[in-house]
């Protein structure tokens, strides 16, 4: 399975996928700990800049987000230590139930994310 987007940055990385924020549950900085180190974080709900900063701090390899603000995208492109894909557009948008259900199944699988090609392959 390959998920292709039009927005992203960063190098190609491999790691275990950790899905967070399914079924409408919000994600907060409290959800991040060192167990996420080296993983690809697949978020199914909007995450704040603080959340992504903490994720960067615990050295995740990559993040996939449903949407994010353009200014946050630029910030992490310049300052983040991870690769990133945006599934929809800039703003604060959801991905819908169907895609949420599909992506939820990727939890725990090994994935490869290429920020330049803007693809996540499982």
């Amino acid at each position, binding site marked *: 399975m390959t998920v292709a987007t*039009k*927005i992203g940055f960063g190098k190609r990385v491999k790691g275990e996928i950790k899905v967070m924020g399914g079924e409408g549950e919000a994600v907060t900085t409290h959800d991040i700990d060192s167990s996420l180190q080296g993983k690809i974080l697949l978020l199914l709900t909007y995450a704040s800049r603080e959340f992504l900063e903490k994720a960067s701090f615990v050295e995740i390899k990559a993040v996939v987000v449903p949407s994010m*603000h*353009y*200014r946050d*995208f630029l910030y992490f492109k310049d300052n983040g230590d991870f690769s990133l894909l945006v599934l929809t*557009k*800039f*703003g604060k948008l959801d991905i819908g139930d169907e895609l949420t259900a599909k992506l939820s199944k990727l939890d725990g699988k090994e994935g490869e994310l290429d920020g330049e090609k803007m693809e996540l392959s499982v």
Partner: protein
Amino acid sequence: MYSYEQIARWLTFPIDPITVEDWVANREIFGREKGDHSEQTEEIELAYQVEKLRESMGNGEQPPSAQGSGGAEEDLDLFLLLNGVEVVGTIDRKDYLAIVPEGRIPDGRKLAEIKINQLGLKKEEKFNIFFGELFIKELDPTVSYKVQVYPGKVSWTGAGKKVFVFDGRGRPLPDFGPGVKSQEIMKKIKNI
């Protein structure tokens, strides 16, 4: 990528910078959104088109509608002409007449006097226009008018016009940003 200030100065409503930044970035990557034709979205799209036009004119390019047609800017609407192309002179179109003087004088100084005569009725109206002002006068298209602008002795006579515009904002346009005054001016232009 156009900045918040570049886009927001053409809008008639207040908007936050994050929304504008997201909109412009999406517009550049995904193109024009097909489903959303709300009034506000249409207005942001128009502002985006104005900036594109200003950018292309700054690079010495012809306005898009003029390319290959030979009839410069003939199809562009008045909003784009006044703000994007920054036309100068007398623009005599199907249902409007616009006069745009070139140059600038100090703020608040009287720029021109306009006389509008309804031919046959011997009815004359006079208006003093000050620098920075956008003067708009609705006309009856069934009536013949004589419009005179002083100084300069610019004169136009004819019928079939719904509106007369005198753009006293100066050329090139001042480097104005988003704000109540610019929003009021844009509302005026959009209502033409």
